[in-house]
């Protein structure tokens, strides 16, 4: 009641019109990256009548062993226990009592744990590489080398990694190397020149790529 009375006694406030202002426009957003969707390439598929091998996902034993092989012995382990083996039931490995066939789909759960595994092993691998206690990724490239300072060594290391991880033999200058040099360079750019982060990105990218976990 009192509040209403006070409101009734309050003089009408003067309406103040704001000064017209010129809106400050944000800078133009960057153009979306060219995904190359306007160009359609050709794909040479195998003859449908010819018998083929089905591309399939690695099973968990293959994945565990291959990650260790690719990283010079580093596995996704916690207290000496392989996490991939610990998670094998969730990842579709049969016990032949309740489940009698192996689920080899590269589903979301698989991708999630593969990502976890890649992050874990690549952290350790790159630490060792930069500390000089391992040399399965950098090859002749030095810990601080970039493509700006030693392109030959970095490109050679990327080519060697592509062979080791994916079984693809490429020469420096091969277009198949471009995504990986781009990944390396882009990481350097966004991290302000952190070569550890750049090699880590390459390592993770190589492991989570279908060319690694499928064959």
């Amino acid at each position, binding site marked *: 009641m009192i509040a209403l009375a006070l409101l009734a006694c309050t003089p009408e406030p003067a309406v103040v019109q704001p000064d017209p202002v010129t809106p400050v426009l944000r800078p133009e957003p960057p153009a979306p*990256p*060219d*995904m*190359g969707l306007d*160009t359609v*390439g050709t*794909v*040479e*598929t*195998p*003859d449908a*009548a*010819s*018998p*083929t*091998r*089905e*591309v*399939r996902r*690695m*099973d968990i*034993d*293959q994945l565990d*062993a*291959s990650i*260790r*092989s*690719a990283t010079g012995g580093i596995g996704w382990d916690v207290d000496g226990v392989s996490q991939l083996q610990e998670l094998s039931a969730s990842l579709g490995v*049969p*016990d*032949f*009592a*309740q489940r*009698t*066939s*192996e689920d080899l789909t590269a589903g979301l759960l698989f991708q999630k744990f593969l990502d976890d595994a890649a992050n874990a092993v690549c952290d350790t691998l790159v630490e060792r590489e930069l500390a000089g206690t391992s040399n399965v990724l950098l090859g002749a490239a030095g810990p601080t080398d970039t493509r700006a300072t030693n392109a030959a060594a970095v490109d050679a290391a990327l080519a*060697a990694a592509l*062979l*080791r*991880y*994916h*079984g*693809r*033999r490429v020469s420096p200058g091969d*277009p*198949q190397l*471009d*995504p990986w040099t*781009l*990944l390396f360079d*882009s*990481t350097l*750019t*966004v*991290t302000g020149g952190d070569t550890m*982060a750049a090699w880590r*990105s390459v390592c*993770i*990218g190589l492991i989570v790529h279908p060319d690694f976990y499928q*064959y």
Partner: protein
Amino acid sequence: MFLLTLGALATEPPTCPPAEALLPAERWLRAVSLDLRGVIPDPADYQRITEPDALPADLVDEWLASDAFLERAVRHHRSLLWPGFTDTRFVINHHRINVSGGIWRSSTRDRLYRGAAGRTCGDFEATFDAEGRPVPNAQGREGWVRVHPYWEADPTVTIRMCAYDAQDTVVSSNGTVCADQNGRNDPNCGCGPDLAYCVSPDFVTDLRASLAGTLDARVKAVLTADAPYSELLTADRMYVNGPLVHYFRNQSKVPASVRLDLAPLDIAALPDLDPWEVDHWVEVPVHAGHSGALTDPAFLTRFMSNRSRVNQFWNAFLCQPFTAPAGGIAGLDVQNPTLDLANRDGCRYCHAIIEPSKAHWGRWTEGGGGWLDPAVYPSFDADCETCSESSLPCDDACRRYYTVDPLSPELDPFVGSLSAYQFLPDAEHHRVDDGPEGLVEENIANGRLPTCVSQKTAGWLLGREPTADDDPLVAAWTDELLASGWDYRTLVRSIVLSEPYRRSR
């Protein structure tokens, strides 16, 4: 950050690798390495590629000869033989012991020892009377004793166990053999020397893994010896490790859901292996009634009925699953159907094959893996016939393994006969004596078995079930398998070096 950099990748037009109608040698080698060894190649392996369209044959042979290949082959055979025993119970509850509050006991013997379920021993060191019996306190509880359990390799390790449960009696004062079924009702029986007659939860886990491991050991043995692959299904050999030896010697006479009490091997001839020797496998000769994996305790206890044994053999080794025709099976609504499934309308669609085939396992017990020795269990037992036709009770063997007390007049002609002979025509009786090996030989002769071995192996390596379009390929691989004297590595080598394997989709 990783996503940012991945986004940055998209600023360049994507570059696809060249189309791969036939894989480049490096990708081909990678696939072969993963299939034969379970791991990607080393960089040095790639250096051995000298031609763009060929793999280094010596490298492939090295891989085929490696232990890693044995493991991959074992893995493939698990998918055929299904060695899964996660729920299998080996011994009756009276012989299962657990720890609670740091003291071990069998909870199902509480009433026998202390007069009430749930009444455990007291947490004090036991005392004994002049006859060596534990002395209970005023609440009827005895104390505990320290005992070295058989599963511990270190002889100085002991556990605390309720004194009644820990009794090491072999034959009680009542004359009860404590390792037999009757031991569970005799308060003077316990778990025996070093607790040998009882199982801990960890030992059950070891036993389950060991039973599955017998099939793995069998596959490895055939491949290690370069023996004909067919021996996987015919050899009269078995494989045992420490836990299995301990089980057969001390625990097989008190079976639960798995009955191996009619031991499929000569227990007295078992090698001296300690219970903790999980990875030490020894080959033991067995009687001629055995037929490789098909009479392995693991196969028999995984597939408990003779019909399920037939079904798995047809699926895994003849590639001929029993499935109903499109549109279903007619004739299943017949009134008063015969018990003879091989001749019952509708059922005979499958059972005309299943019934005579199951007779091949007629001397192997269902619900376990015991051997019905003809010297002890003749095809006809007059005592079983007599008890069935009189008011005398039939003994355990008659009730379990022979036709007694028929529920239908249809079974009258088989009273007193081994169950395997029910509805089996005289001309088929040889199947019981032939055992599963007879079935194997029959299907080697008609070509089904070697063809299916090729099909299953191709399915493993090609990542898909072969179709009718693949028949010429499978036929060629089968010819190679047979020409090589059933050399499994020859078959695998032919497949991974073939053009279809290299042509991935």
